[in-house]
């Protein structure tokens, strides 16, 4: 352990690891962006990592280190020692870009990581500081990549043609020359596959679910939060218990009952079930919020001659508007994303919700880019809502995500 805590060793090791991280990151990014062949060169990473780490420790002039390092990268780029190796077809300009971005993203963060480290033995504080900075940088890269890559692939695949996909699955560059033809999958989905109507069905089913849920859960939540009655504790416990019943257990008897009563394949049937799956969550979230409201305002209302229901309508609800927005968004998200029930209960393509419609595209006869275009169509509205109202959404997620 103590030998690690020597400036030179720490610097060299962190430099080494960081060189590999950056080399892989640059290769993957450029491969995904251009479809050309980039791959990390282990020998180059080894040498450049050690050099960079030691330079950052021993040469204190950051500008000198950075300039020298990038120059070194460019110099050894045409030798087998290059930190990034290329297939023959990669143009020199791309090669240059790859190597320079490697140099920059390698050495610049490295000097920042090792800012507290000096030559010679390091204090525990300085050592851990360097390690934590390295891990932080690594963390940002890995988390961002892991989250972004699937979404990037989803959007880009939907814009490709079948032949291009089969020819090179890595090539996600956009062929701008195709013009409007880029959106062909989307045009076909809306034109031939009826996605406009699925979008509309999903939308009104979700909105109605939100309204019905609020209608039931607001009075319920108020009663649990404010009124004293026997069995209140038991009731709020059973709400939690009900959320824990998995949908698949309920879906089977619901399927049977709906098959026998003819409610299967109908939107009203779906609307009978969706709100019930969200009412417990909404009730739980709202009662938490109602409890936090000052009771004195309501008591003042009661003194002034309002009835309880008027108090709820005129005082509690306006005060809890932000919570209502959060709950509504959360419920909307659950209903919009709901898959299992829609899948089991709907067979008739004219009544599909969006998730059911996308599930239909998962067949070997329908090309992949259509499936991905369907996925994009399902994701965009919920993302737009999320990004636009992130503050409320995050609150809703935190309060309600006992359910998941």
């Amino acid at each position: 352990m103590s030998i690690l805590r020597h400036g030179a060793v720490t610097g060299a090791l962190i430099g080494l690891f960081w060189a590999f991280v950056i080399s892989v990151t640059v290769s993957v990014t450029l491969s995904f962006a251009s479809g050309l062949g980039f791959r990390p060169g282990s020998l180059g990473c080894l040498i450049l990592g050690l050099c960079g780490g030691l330079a950052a420790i021993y040469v204190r002039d950051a500008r000198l280190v950075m300039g020298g390092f990038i120059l070194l990268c460019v110099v050894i780029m045409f030798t087998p020692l290059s930190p990034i190796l290329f297939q023959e077809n990669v143009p020199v300009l791309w090669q240059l870009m790859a190597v320079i971005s490697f140099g920059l993203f390698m050495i610049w963060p490295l000097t920042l990581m090792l800012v507290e480290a000096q030559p010679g033995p390091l204090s525990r504080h300085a050592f851990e500081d360097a390690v934590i900075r390295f891990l932080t940088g690594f963390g940002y890269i890995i988390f961002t990549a892991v989250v972004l890559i699937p979404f990037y692939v989803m959007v880009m695949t939907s814009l490709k043609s079948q032949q291009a996909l089969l020819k090179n699955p890595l090539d996600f560059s956009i062929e701008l020359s195709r013009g409007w033809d880029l959106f062909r999958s989307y045009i076909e989905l809306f034109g031939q596959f009826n996605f406009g109507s699925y979008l509309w069905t999903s939308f009104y089913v979700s909105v109605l679910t939100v309204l019905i849920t609020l209608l039931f859960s607001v009075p319920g939540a108020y009663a649990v939060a404010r009124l004293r009655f026997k069995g209140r504790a038991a009731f709020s416990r059973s709400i939690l218990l009900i959320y824990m019943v998995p949908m698949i257990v309920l879906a089977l008897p619901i399927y049977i009952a709906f098959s026998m009563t003819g409610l299967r394949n109908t939107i009203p049937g779906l609307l009978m079930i969706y709100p019930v799956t969200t009412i417990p969550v909404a009730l739980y979230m709202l009662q938490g919020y109602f409890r936090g409201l000052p009771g004195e305002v309501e008591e003042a209302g009661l003194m002034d001659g309002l009835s309880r229901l008027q108090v709820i309508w005129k005082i509690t609800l306006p005060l809890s508007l932000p919570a209502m927005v959060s709950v509504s968004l959360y419920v909307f998200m659950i209903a919009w994303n709901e898959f299992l029930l829609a899948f089991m209960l709907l067979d008739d393509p004219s009544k599909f919700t969006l998730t059911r419609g996308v599930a239909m595209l998962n067949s070997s006869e329908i090309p992949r880019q259509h499936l991905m275009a369907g996925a994009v169509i399902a994701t965009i509205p919920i993302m737009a809502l999320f990004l636009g109202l992130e503050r409320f959404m995050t609150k809703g997620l935190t309060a309600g995500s006992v359910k998941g």
Partner: protein
Amino acid sequence: MTVPTPPTTRGALERREARLAWSLLLPTITIVSLVIILPLLAIFWISFKPVGLADLRPVAPVIRESLRERSGEMVIEYRVRNSSQQKEIAGLSFTDTLHDGVTLGALPEQCSVESGALRCEFGDVPGGFNERIRIPVTLDGDPDTLEEIVEGTEPEGFGSADNILTNTEFTLDNFARIFDGDEFWSVLWATVFYTVFGTIGALVIGLFAALLLNKSFRGKGVLRGLYLFPYVSPIIAVAFTWVTLLDPFSGSLNALLIQMGVVDSPINFFGQRPLALIMVTVFEIWRYFPLSFLFILARMQSIDTDMYEAADMDGASPFQKFWYLSLPMLLGILSVLFLLRFIWTFNKFDDIFLLTGGNAGTRTLTVNVYEQAFAISNIGAGAAVAVVIFATLLLFSFFFFKYISQEEGL
């Protein structure tokens, strides 16, 4: 002088409040019992019944009526059928209204006219029963209009069939089948692996993500929003994206790995044991780490910074601060999250169903419900699996309420 004491009985005001509370709760209680409690009871009932998917179609008489010309004379023809090929219908009969302008001729032996309506009886008929009855008629008026009038009214069929869902035939076969040998152990193993590693993985990764964002810098809001993407987007979209990305033939990840020289031939991520089970667990971690991340970050930001300043004064290193200060403060929320996520991962169905369909050793208990009920068409066995799931959950929630209800927040 009497000492004033608080009332021991419930006053009128208190009773009124309780009454109001129950009336506010009544709609919720009603609908929740209808859609959750009732199906739960039903699933217990069904799990002891030998029910297949085909039994869900109701057994009932099907009667078609037509007015037509047959060898020179007009007849009304009734075609009477049993909708089931196997089940018997007891006391099958039908009635039909008579119309002006249509006079019935000689009636067949099953039929009679009672108080202005035609009634035909067939007694008990076996499965696959199919018979035509012809009654000669004389028409008084335009045949085409009369045809429309006659065929415009639906004959009403009667008869009672034995319904497998409501009779008293019970069996333990369903449970015997699902606990049968190898398959059960493989399902159990998949469930335990998926639940335990999925839960712990999501918690640990969420903790890392929260540590990353627990400082202020430019672009923090953007990153926080970005890290929530996997959880917010529809399951169907992200699951199919993963399938596309990891496809052995046209998947980008395989192409990338081959180009980088990591592997020689494409890997079938979702198609081979035991990789498929690991991959669905990785997917679970990817999709649900945002949730633990959000909770842990919220808790971290509420920790008092004084404590860290004091630790700095005492010369604590960053790791020591994390281990001795942050982690104990987070233990509460971590254990709450662990139990909740454990239950929810256990309940998860959609993810595995969409990724692998339960193949290649990824069939968990929840996927098994679907598999038994719909793929093998044995509703009874599916219900039996559901009962097992429910019983396990009751056990979990016992722990939940025992240990969690004292904990913060939830």
